[in-house]
Every structure is written in structure tokens, then in C-alpha cells.
């Protein structure tokens, strides 16, 4: 089993570039620092590293050849889509190649009858739904970066979105993927049918953060667009009551298309930014979207409205047309930039908790917030327990980023402690590798390494991401033991702050 994360190729930048230029348009083999610069980070910009080379193949054969050469020379390969990821999963390796899949941007086929689309990995998430729209179909998962993020990246991260509870994550919406192995061999996992024989390699590959293979083609399921969608907004005077209301909707047998919660800090920031008509005095706000047939939506909206009122909502408003619906969502959708306006920087976390723990987790978070003197605003995919605390900080104040990182790490550990996990949809990447030992013990981690070795024995695919070395795990555990509870400032979680 390999426990090393670093690989040191013996080949120089120029020699490697030369080899690539023999079969790739020289313009697409980037080796000068100025042109390499934009590739130094992904959406989590505080983590950055200049790559040795960036290469943008235009055909699968070219990508295959890149991998073969890198495999032979033991050169690290970091695959990259649109670079919108939020965990530094696409941060380059200093001695490695960034394999940009940006040129693979064609939708190859839409089969409206079989409800499937075959696309290249560089196709944007939203572009699939746009192309399928004329058939009354769309692609389900809708991460908030969907206008820019690519489907290849979605597969790598198992991306979610606001409609996961009802329509699932990326893994639930794939039929097959074509991949290149580290050796450059082409394989297909899955098929045009729903289930395949044997162990589910397609599921294993989904969310593997570019550590097991490089996606070259994706076949996704398309869903019929719901006839109607309506959203109910409700304000509550406590987070607990809002949390109970979420449980009550589920208990009623209703699975909303989207179910989002915001705390008072997020409400105030979003309202100031978007003027969506949110009740700024509320302690918590719920947005519950119901979609389906006209009859079903009508029936369920009535049920949700009266349930909110019965549970003591301080205000309830329902959209009656698309314009009103868009307006109610506008506040939630602009929550991040809105928070960006009230603070020089913010850091978005991504933990998941059992929903019943929400009030406890928010209370704890408020306590930690006061203790460390950093404000935190919360937006929450309430339906599926995915919490996005936004820690507000100022990177120009010495030490504040470190304090933020520490606070963020503590939040993730709290999520694990209440039965949740350190990342619901953003991935581990470099960012959360520090917290992996909070969720997994060394035996689990060792099994992950054996899986990795089955695909990539030399460890050249996206090294240093996703899975910590056992040495890192030991360091984490000894540090945890040596630190007194609540003495957060000394705890050096090696993590990151991001801005948009």
C-alpha cells in the first residue's frame, strides 16, 4: 500500500512540453509562467501552486497520449474542468501537468425518448439543461456554480445542488462514464441501461476527485421538467421552530423539490442585497419549493402553508407566478455575494448533519463564533442536512485567516461529532484533508489507499488530495490530544479561506 503523496518526476518542463507538442497544437501546451498563472488555483483561491505545465488536448487520443507519457515519466496529472471547485481539488502540482478538459465541450447526443444525453466532460452543467429544454427535459443536479462548472468536474466531486433531496446527486443521475485510466487505457463504466453487472465501479468513480481516472465522456439521465413549481417562504422566530417545520413537512409525506433555510445573519445580508422581501426580523427563514403536476403542487402547497402557520411562522408568503418565485429565490441565490458585501472576506464551509441536530449545531457555532470573535452566517440545504456556514473575516488583519481556518475546522469536527460528515458536496481536495481523520479511522483510511493503489499504484493522479497519508492522520490525532478543548487559536488546521 502506498502512503506517499508526493511524486518526483525526473523529466524537465521543456522536455515534457516538447513531447506533448509533437501531437498537440503547440498553442495548447502552456509552459510560460504568465499563461500558466490562471491555472494556479480553483474556486478556493487561497490555495495555489504553479503547475509545471498545462495541456489542453482536443481529442481523447491526445489525452490518452498525455497520460501514457506522464505515466511513463511518473509525472503527476491534475485534471481540470472549469476550475470552479471549492476544495482546491484542482490545485496544480508543482511538478505536475494540469490536464485541462476545456476543449471537450461538445454535447454529442440528446436522446429525448430515452431521456439521456451523451456529453463531453467540459460541457457546462447548465448547458445540458438548456439543450434538453426544447424537449421538455432537464438535467437534475444544479450546483450553484452550474452556469460555469463542467459535468466532468461534477462527476469528480459528485456535485449536488438545491434539489438533491428529491432528485439526487450526480451519482444518481449518471448512466455511464468513459474514462482513461492512469495508464491511458479507455474504459466505460455503466451502460445505456440503469444497472450493470458486478461491483459498482461507476459509483466508486463518482466523487473520487480525479484520483482514480480521467473522465472523457458522460451519459446522464434527463428528467421531464415539472409542470409547475411554487415556493413558500416562511419566517420563524427561532431556528428550532424552523427546524421542526422541516421535519413536519417530511412527516406529512411531502418531499419538496428544494428546501432551504437561512439564519438571521444570512437573511439580513441577503435582503439588503437582493430586496427579495425577506422578513429581516426573523431568526430563521425557510424556502420550500414544491414541484410536480398542477394538482399535486396545489395540494402540497396548501398543506405546507397551513403547516407553517400552525407551527407558528411569523410570516408566510407563496409565489403565484414565475416572477414571484424567482424573486423569492433571488435572496437565497445571492446569499454568498450578499455576505461578501458585509465583510471583506468570507469562508464557505460545507458540513452535513442529521437535520434534528440543527438547532444544537447552530447554537454551538454561535458560541464558537463569540469565543473567537468572528461572525458566521448560515445557509442550509435543510432538506438534506447540508450546512454552509459562511465565516466572515478580513484576510488583511494579521492572524485572522488562521483564526478562520481554525474555526472552520472546529465546525467540521462538530458536524462529525453529531453524526454528520465533513463535506456534503464540495469535496475534500486539499482543503479538508486535515479533517478526514475526524471522520475516518486509520483502518478506513488505509483501505482508501488500497483502493487508490488498485487504480493508480504509482499515485500520480491528483497526488496530495482527497485522502490523507497515515502520517498526516497520526499528526492530526496527536495534535488533537495535545490541545485543550476551546483553545482554538493554537490549533493549526492547515486550511483555507476563500473569496469569490
Amino acid at each position, binding site marked *: 500500500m502506498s502512503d506517499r503523496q508526493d511524486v518526483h518526476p525526473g523529466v524537465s518542463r521543456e522536455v515534457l512540453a516538447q513531447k506533448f507538442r509533437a501531437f498537440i497544437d503547440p498553442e495548447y501546451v502552456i509552459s510560460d509562467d504568465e499563461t500558466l498563472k490562471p491555472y494556479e488555483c480553483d474556486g478556493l483561491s487561497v490555495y495555489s501552486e504553479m503547475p509545471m505545465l498545462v495541456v489542453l488536448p482536443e481529442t481523447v487520443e491526445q489525452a490518452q497520449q498525455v497520460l501514457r507519457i506522464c505515466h511513463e515519466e511518473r509525472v503527476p496529472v491534475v485534471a481540470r474542468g472549469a476550475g470552479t471547485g471549492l476544495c482546491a481539488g484542482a490545485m496544480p502540482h508543482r511538478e505536475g501537468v494540469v490536464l485541462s478538459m476545456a476543449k471537450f465541450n461538445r454535447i454529442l447526443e440528446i436522446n429525448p425518448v430515452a431521456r439521456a444525453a451523451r456529453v463531453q466532460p467540459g460541457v457546462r452543467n447548465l448547458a445540458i439543461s438548456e439543450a434538453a429544454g426544447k424537449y421538455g427535459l432537464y438535467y437534475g443536479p444544479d450546483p450553484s456554480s452550474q452556469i460555469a462548472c463542467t459535468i466532468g468536474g461534477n462527476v469528480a466531486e459528485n456535485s449536488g445542488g438545491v434539489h438533491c433531496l428529491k432528485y439526487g446527486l450526480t451519482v444518481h443521475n449518471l448512466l455511464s462514464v468513459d474514462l482513461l485510466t492512469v495508464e491511458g487505457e479507455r474504459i466505460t463504466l455503466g451502460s445505456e441501461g440503469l444497472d450493470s453487472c458486478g461491483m459498482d465501479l461507476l459509483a466508486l468513480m463518482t466523487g473520487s476527485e480525479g484520483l482514480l481516472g480521467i473522465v472523457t465522456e458522460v451519459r446522464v439521465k434527463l428528467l421531464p421538467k415539472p409542470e409547475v413549481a411554487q415556493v413558500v417562504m416562511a419566517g420563524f422566530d427561532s431556528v428550532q421552530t424552523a427546524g421542526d417545520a422541516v421535519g413536519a413537512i417530511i412527516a406529512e409525506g411531502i418531499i419538496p423539490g428544494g428546501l432551504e433555510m437561512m439564519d438571521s445573519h444570512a437573511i439580513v445580508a441577503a435582503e439588503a442585497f437582493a430586496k427579495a422581501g425577506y422578513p429581516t426580523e426573523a431568526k430563521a427563514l425557510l424556502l420550500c419549493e414544491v414541484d410536480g403536476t398542477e394538482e399535486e403542487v396545489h395540494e402540497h402547497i396548501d398543506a405546507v402553508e397551513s403547516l407553517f402557520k400552525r407551527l407558528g411562522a411569523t410570516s408566510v408568503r407563496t409565489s403565484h407566478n414565475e416572477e414571484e418565485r424567482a424573486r423569492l429565490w433571488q435572496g437565497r441565490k445571492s446569499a454568498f455575494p450578499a455576505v461578501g458585501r458585509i465583510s471583506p472576506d468570507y469562508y464557505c464551509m460545507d458540513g452535513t448533519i442529521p437535520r*434534528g441536530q440543527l438547532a444544537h449545531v447552530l447554537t454551538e457555532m454561535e458560541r464558537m463564533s463569540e469565543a473567537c470573535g468572528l461572525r458566521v452566517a448560515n445557509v442550509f440545504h435543510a432538506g438534506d442536512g447540508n450546512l454552509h456556514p459562511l465565516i466572515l473575516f478580513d484576510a488583511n488583519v494579521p492572524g485572522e485567516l488562521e483564526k478562520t481556518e481554525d474555526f472552520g475546522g472546529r465546525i467540521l469536527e462538530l458536524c462529525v461529532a453529531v453524526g454528520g*460528515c465533513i463535506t456534503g458536496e464540495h469535496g475534500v481536495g486539499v482543503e479538508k484533508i486535515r479533517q478526514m481523520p475526524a471522520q475516518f479511522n486509520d483502518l478506513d483510511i488505509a483501505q482508501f489507499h488500497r483502493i487508490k493503489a488498485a487504480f493508480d499504484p504509482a499515485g500520480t493522479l491528483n497526488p496530495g488530495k482527497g485522502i490523507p497519508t497515515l502520517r498526516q492522520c497520526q499528526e492530526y490525532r496527536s495534535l488533537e490530544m495535545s490541545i485543550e478543548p476551546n483553545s482554538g487559536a493554537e490549533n493549526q488546521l492547515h486550511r483555507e479561506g476563500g473569496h469569490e
Partner: protein
Amino acid sequence: MSDKQVQLVDQVLAARERRQPVRIVGGDTKAFMGRSTDSALPVLDLSGHTGILTYHPVELVLTARAGTTLAELDAALSEHNQMLSFEPPRFGKNSTLGGTLACHLSGPGRPWWGSVRDQVLGVRLINGQGEALRFGGQVMKNVAGYDVSRLQAGAMGTLGVMTEISLKVLPRPASTRTLVFDCEMDEAVSIMNRRSVEAKPLSAACWLDNKLYLRLSGAHSAVDATLSHWGGSELMDAEHFWHRLRDHQLDFFCTSLPLWRFSVNPTARMPGLSGQWLVDWGGAQRWYLGNAELSEMERIAVEAGGQVSLFRGGDRSAEVMHTPPQAVKALQQRLKHAFDPDGLFNPGRLYSWM
């Protein structure tokens, strides 16, 4: 409810010590599946490892030991008007949750409500070194680490002994009604696909004996409106029909002929063979009864964009699963080695070479 975790770990360690492979058995209702293996192999018995550990209806999450019967889960869920949305087949009253996941079995609602693999959130598993591991969790979204939980679907126990499984469960639909139409297979397949494009509460679509069955599930008003809009006659006692389809109790399945399962593009036109067809999953799953060679069936499956397995009957000493390409075969072998280096678990059950 009983916890055999410690004994199970001991048994695996002992098997490892002796280099003695074992057969993993739960309720023993799926012995007909996979390849026939050496019946002299000692049994690793999961049937005593039972019990629902946590079930929070408003969280839509349930965790149970792998040997828990589907019947026990059904009983607990129905108290809260919830269900296993993947409608697992009950091939016997002792069918267990672990066996269902290992064999990746889902019922008629699968295209709309997801498969067992789709609903799995986490597993605990003992690997071939006798290590008790935990993957995934009890929350809907968790992208930390590789998805080892879902990898188990279809592995037929070859990667480890699953001891505990967490699942997403769903509310039971308020109303369910079924329409039935007379038509031939090709026409039925095209109607199923056409209906699937509509944003209506379709929840199952099956064809057999020149009859097309469309099940609608959801809010009363939505089901009633769609029913009258689509026309056709309503099937009485429909629940019984869907259960018998799910559990392979329909007359179609009561035969000694080899039963082939095709997982294909839902729109595929299957060739006119001499045997009988049954179409399920809105066209994405086709059952075929008849004697045939696996290689010939594979050719037909590939043509239809999918895969085939010999589900029941026929020659079970030969391969019964669609032959993977060499590179995929090699990956599976390496993964097997990564979990079970001594080849202790269910040797030869999934493939002769594993």
C-alpha cells in the same frame, strides 16, 4: 435483534488464519443467484446479525444490521407510512437487507424511485484482513472518501462482509392506481417511453402477455387527474400484481427455463427470439425465458446498449454475468485484492476468476 459483530470478525480472522474461504449467507433466499460455488465451503452466517439500530422517520434515514429481514424493515417503516423506495424483491420471507444490497436488487419503481444502491448512505464492513471498517454515514450527502458503500452493490459479497447498512427511506405515496392496456410488446415499449417523458406521477411500467401496466403514485389529485387523462382501464388488486412482479411470483417466472435479465436502453427493440419476454422498468429491464448461450445474449445486450446476466437456472457452473472488457476485469481483480487479498469471500460466486 442480536449483535454478532464480534463473532463475525473472529470468524473472518480464523478463516484468514487457515486460508479457508467462506460463503457469506444471510436469509439464504438468493442461493440461486450468481455462480454455483463449492457447497462444502463453510458458511459465514449473517442471519443472526439483526436489528434496526436507528430509524428517524423525519430524517428519512434508517440504519440496520445486514441480517435484518426486509419483513422487519417493512413493519417498522409502515408504522410511519414510509417505505424502502427501491422496492426490493422478497424471494423468501427471510430475504435480508445485506443480501439485497450485495445482489443489487430493486423492484418495479427503480427508474423513478432509484435502486438500492442509490439509497445507500453508508455501510460497515469487515474486509479480508478482519478489519471492521466504516464508510459513508447516516446523512444524505457525504462526499468524503471513496464511495465504498455503493461499490458493494452487485459485488455479491466478494469485497467484504457487510454488517451494517444505512439507507435513505421515503414516504409512501398517498395514492397508487394502475392502468392496464392491451397491446403488443414493441408498442408497449414505445408507450412507456412516451409516458416517461411526461411530467406525470408514473411509478412503474411493465408489459407481459400483451398487456401494458402503468402504475401512478403520488398525491391523490395528481394520480386521479393523470388516470383520467391517460384513459385505459384500471387494474383492480393492483398492489398484488406489482408485488408478484417484484418477487418473481407471476406465472411468467414459474418455470424451469433459464431466466435472463437484460439491463438496456429503455427504447431498445429486442430481437424476436423463440422464448418469452417480460418488459419492466419502463423498458430498461427485460426478462427473457429461454435456452441460449451467454455469448449470444451478450451480443443482443450490447446491441441494445446494455448488459445481460443469467439470473436464474441454466448452467451456473459457467459464467453468468456479462463479460467485462479486459481492463475492467483487471480493475475488479485489483479491487478484490485491495479488500480481500487472500480471496476469502464468496470465491467464484460473481465470476469464475474472482
